[in-house]
């Protein structure tokens, strides 16, 4: 008689083990715990590059990095969980509002040097995961540094008008008729990776010129010209094979054996090198599909 309950017990144990394995697989496929997933989102979104000063030994994510633009010099803010100097008092909804609408708590309009025109497309899931990660990074009490801008650009209320004209906070929607890989690539290039923010020329008001998307920017950040990454054979990367694009994103190595420099080297070091193989392939698929444009010559 005791053999039957023992058999039931054994069966229950096997079932439990099976369920545990299944849940483990499900967790791995969804990118691990929210913190792990958040770290991945954080990497792909390239937060570290702008939110950490270039000074030697500067605390990570404590801001202070100078971003020189044609409008003046901006200094990135502290995004560590410090309650006074960082974003320790922010809720996930506050983060979502900053990323999508370009507003921080207190209805303060943010300058679009923070690339919310691109981040606006982020999924709820990615924003929640990002917040879970940002709450875990070490705090820093580094105070924020005021931007160095001409007087007329210090009126943040003007940004409300700017947003009315140039910003549409819409969450990314996959395009029907395109593959899952292409849509993932579009999300990575246009939203999380915000490639267009540097690789697209801007109009006189600092908004991206969508008719010349990814065709390079002669007046890029830090005074650098930023190359055309459309598949144009002469002006862009149309001569690069899929593998060459993928290798460049992963390591910075170019087809001629040269290695990336400038801001892009930071982007690779802080962000792109952490991408999964599937995400790299998705980015390549999408980049190869965008319209081939000539670069803007000045």
């Amino acid at each position, binding site marked *: 008689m005791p053999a039957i309950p023992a058999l039931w017990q054994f069966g229950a144990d096997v079932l439990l083990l099976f369920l545990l394995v299944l849940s483990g697989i499900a967790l791995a496929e969804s990118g691990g715990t929210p913190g792990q997933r958040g770290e991945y989102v954080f990497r792909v979104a390239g937060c570290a590059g702008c939110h950490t000063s270039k000074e030697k030994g500067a605390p990570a994510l404590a801001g202070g990095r100078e971003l020189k633009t044609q409008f003046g010099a901006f200094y990135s803010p502290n995004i560590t969980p410090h309650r006074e100097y960082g974003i320790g008092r922010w809720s996930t909804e506050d983060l979502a509002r900053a990323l999508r609408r370009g507003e921080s708590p207190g209805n303060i309009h943010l300058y679009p040097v923070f690339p919310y025109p691109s981040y606006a497309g982020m999924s709820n899931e990615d924003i929640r995961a990002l917040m879970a990660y940002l709450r875990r990074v070490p705090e820093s009490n580094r105070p924020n540094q005021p931007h160095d801008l001409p007087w007329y650009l210090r009126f943040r209320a003007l940004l409300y008008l700017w947003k009315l004209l140039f910003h549409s906070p819409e969450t990314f929607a996959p395009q029907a008729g395109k593959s899952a890989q292409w849509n993932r690539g579009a999300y990575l290039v246009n939203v999380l990776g915000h490639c267009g923010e540097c690789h697209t020329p801007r109009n006189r008001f600092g908004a991206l010129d969508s008719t010349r998307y990814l065709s390079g920017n002669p007046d890029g950040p830090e005074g650098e010209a930023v190359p055309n990454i459309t598949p144009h054979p002469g002006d862009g990367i149309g001569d690069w094979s899929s593998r060459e694009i993928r290798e460049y994103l992963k390591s*910075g190595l170019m087809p001629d054996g040269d290695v990336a420099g400038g801001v892009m080297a930071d982007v690779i070091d802080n962000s792109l090198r952490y991408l999964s193989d599937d995400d790299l392939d998705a980015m390549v698929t999408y980049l190869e599909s965008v319209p081939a444009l000539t*670069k803007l010559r000045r």
Partner: protein
Amino acid sequence: MHRWIFSAPLTAALLMVLAGARIVAAEDDESTIKYRQSIMKSVGGHTGAIYEIVKNNNPNKDHLKRHASALDDLMGMVQAAFKRQTSGGKTRAKAEIWSDAAGFSNAASDAEAASGAFVAATESGNDGEIAKKLDELLDTCKGCHKNYREKKD
């Protein structure tokens, strides 16, 4: 009057010498730039070949040590090639190479050390170690390219 007669040929001679020196300096700049660009192109050639063997399974695996050794030799020439400051010319070298000579020297020394470590890895024959040291070497290339080279438009 006498003093003027004596000084005129002297002044003319001095101007000719200065003009000559200027031409020589310009030629030197051109040669300096061409020389260092040739070195860097050779570095790129070996790096590209190494990458194909290590990361993309190119069958010329028996060439790997020779590429590594040649690359290491070239890396040892980089600092000397950039020692002389140039101004203008067809170059993407930034003035910071010379205004921040210590920073440039540290970054270039890191790359030299990484190429030496890559040679050692190829001697070991351990594929995992070779791939790891190649990644580290590419990182050190960025160390100089980030701050000391103009971006290509």
